[in-house]
């Protein structure tokens, strides 16, 4: 039996709330398949399973908060059969389709629906019961259903409404509720960012180095490359910068990984956490996975998709919990340079300021070039300023040969 546990969806997460099961009992689960949607303090995340099997039991309840590591579901490995005596709990099994009624017994059996009436995990509440509960301000979670399959019926709600109540129910409009929820969510995110950044500045001895990188070659190359591309597939400078960071990191592995238990743990995969600001405030840095191995076109598509899904709140767990370094790119709206705060347990952060035309002295002459000030904030426990500076020079070198970054 395989235990599917609530993973930490980000290093700062210690609990989560199950929003939705994406699988039902009996479903086959493949590696990397999204099995549940879990709400963290930052966003709703699609949680993937890293093991294969058949869903035997869904344990976690929708809407219940649980600590990281809680067993959410049990899967049967291939070839494994359910142990005797372990019942299938929590959810309704699909009702088998009734055979054509021929025998007298079948004649009087209630016609069974061909499939389970609702998805696993969702409580069955009749529409009339739901409506009545809303009118009376009855909390449906506090009611035990007595209808078929444990459904909450109108009668259940009427009984609950008639029962004396401990505290008066404050009636709120749906809009008020939604606004309050959003405010609570924003406050939660602020708290999460506050905790992570305080920890970072408390524990990580940051050092900072910066380098002005001319982008004339890079932007000229992009312009040519984009001429042949349809509008939707055009490359933005951000994709090139990210690819360059990923390639540079291959030579500076001490910047890519985690500080854990008093020591540095390098990570082979280069998963760039891309800082994305949210419209309602706050930010998330989900990962572009294995950015070093992806062609520029793919990276661009994935970046666009990642930004879209981050803002829509549908990130996958691997994107949330696996960034090995963070890249912050202030873009056109940003300032000249940025010196970021490292996201623990990562050990480095690369910051790009605004790309702008600046006077550039070279070979005894002066020209005007597009330039970006690039910074590195890194953990002095793991690396030193000298290596950090070399990393930035490598980054500079790579960006002078954009054609080599394409593949």
């Amino acid at each position, binding site marked *: 039996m395989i235990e599917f546990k609530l993973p930490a969806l980000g290093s700062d997460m210690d609990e989560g709330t199950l929003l939705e099961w994406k699988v039902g009992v009996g479903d086959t689960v493949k590696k990397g398949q999204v099995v549940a949607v879990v709400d963290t303090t930052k966003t709703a995340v699609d949680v993937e399973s890293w093991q294969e099997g058949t869903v035997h039991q869904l344990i976690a309840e929708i809407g219940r908060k649980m600590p990281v590591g809680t067993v959410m579901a049990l899967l049967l490995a291939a070839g494994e059969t359910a142990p005797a005596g372990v019942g299938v709990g929590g959810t309704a099994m699909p009702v088998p389709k009734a055979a054509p009624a021929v025998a007298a017994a079948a*004649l*009087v059996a*209630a*016609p069974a629906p061909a499939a389970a*009436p609702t998805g696993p995990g969702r409580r069955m509440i*009749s*529409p009339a019961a*739901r409506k009545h509960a809303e009118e009376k301000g009855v909390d449906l979670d506090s009611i035990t259903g007595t209808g078929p399959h444990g459904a909450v*019926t109108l*009668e259940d709600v009427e009984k609950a409404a008639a029962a004396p109540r401990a505290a008066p129910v404050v009636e709120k409009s749906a809009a008020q509720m939604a606004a309050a929820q959003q405010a609570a969510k924003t406050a939660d995110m602020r708290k999460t960012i506050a905790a992570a950044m305080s920890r970072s500045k408390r524990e990580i001895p940051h050092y900072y180095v910066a380098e002005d990188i001319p982008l004339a070659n890079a932007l000229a190359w992009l312009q040519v490359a984009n001429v042949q591309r349809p509008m939707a597939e055009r490359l933005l400078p951000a994709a090139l910068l990210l690819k360059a960071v990923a390639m540079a990191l291959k030579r500076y592995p001490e910047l890519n990984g985690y500080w854990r238990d008093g020591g540095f743990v390098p990570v082979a995969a280069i998963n760039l956490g891309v800082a994305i600001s949210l419209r309602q405030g706050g930010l998330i840095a989900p990962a572009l996975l294995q950015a070093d191995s992806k062609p520029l076109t793919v990276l661009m598509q994935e970046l666009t998709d990642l930004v879209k899904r981050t803002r829509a709140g549908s990130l996958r767990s691997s994107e949330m919990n696996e960034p090995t370094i963070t890249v912050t790119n202030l873009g056109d709206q940003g300032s000249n340079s940025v010196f970021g705060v490292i996201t623990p347990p990562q050990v480095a952060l690369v910051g790009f300021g605004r790309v702008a035309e600046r006077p550039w002295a070279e070979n005894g002459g002066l020209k005007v070039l597009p330039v970006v000030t690039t910074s590195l904030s890194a953990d002095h426990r793991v690396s030193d300023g000298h290596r950090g500076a070399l990393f930035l020079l490598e980054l500079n070198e790579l960006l002078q040969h954009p054609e080599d970054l394409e593949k």
Partner: protein
Amino acid sequence: MSRKLNYREAMREAMHEALTNDPRVFLMGEDVGMYGGTYAFSKGFLDEFGPERIRDTPLSELGFVGAGIGAALGGMRPIVEVMTVNFSLLALDQIVNSAATFRHMSGGQFSVPLVIRMTTGAGRQLAAQHSHSLEGWYAHIPGIKVLAPATIEDARGMLAPALADPDPVVIFEHAGLFNMEGELPDDWSVDISSAKVRRAGKDVAIITHGGSLPKALAAAEQLAAAGIDAEVLDLRVLRPLDTATIMASVAKCRRAVVVDEGWRTGSLAAEVMARIMENAFYELDAPVARVCSEEVPIPYARHMEEAALPQAEKIVAAVKGFFA
């Protein structure tokens, strides 16, 4: 003073009255004359009204239904008897493509005041080719009205308003009802627009029509013994459906089971359920259930045929499923 008579006599009286009162009315169909009607609905009519008005036809549904449409266009008020719904499939082109469309196709210049009567339903060991319940098919067609008299009162009363209607009316008479006896009240006039509650209740609405009505009423009696107060709603008019009355019953009882002798898939029951979803979803306290015929050609063997059709026991079981 009400009086006792059976469904067959009620229908015969209705036709007799129409033939007597309106010279434009005539009856046409297979065996309606010499033989007195396959189900003896027109026994003695040939002698009384003569061969001009009681016309035996060849075995050609396409032909004589078409002749009925022509007569109606020409100002007559024909009653065309098609022996059973099974044979009416041969006349579908006339009914669907001609009768139902002429008002529309002529820009309102022509109407087809035609009444088509046909026997429907299973339960008499007539096997798969003579046991269809295809009311639902006809109820799909705009341009016609579809009636399903299931009581003595409706058998007696529905023909007159059907003949008075300026558009084609198809009347489905379930063979299982022909020998049913009942009291005919003094005022038996009825409309052909509304559904009717045949038994008032508050716990579950059993929505049905035609040959399933007596089964639904029997089920309601059994349920009463179990403490469940069932309402039985007789649709009566299958097109256009009386949505308001259906929703009133559903809103009152909050649970509904639709009983329909048609096959389940794409059935009239499905249409009723869809309307409940559209109009009364928030009134429901349970998913709407239905009891339909099993999706097989209706078997010949009695026990198999009974097992294939809606029965009071199946209705009771469906209703008890709401309270399990």
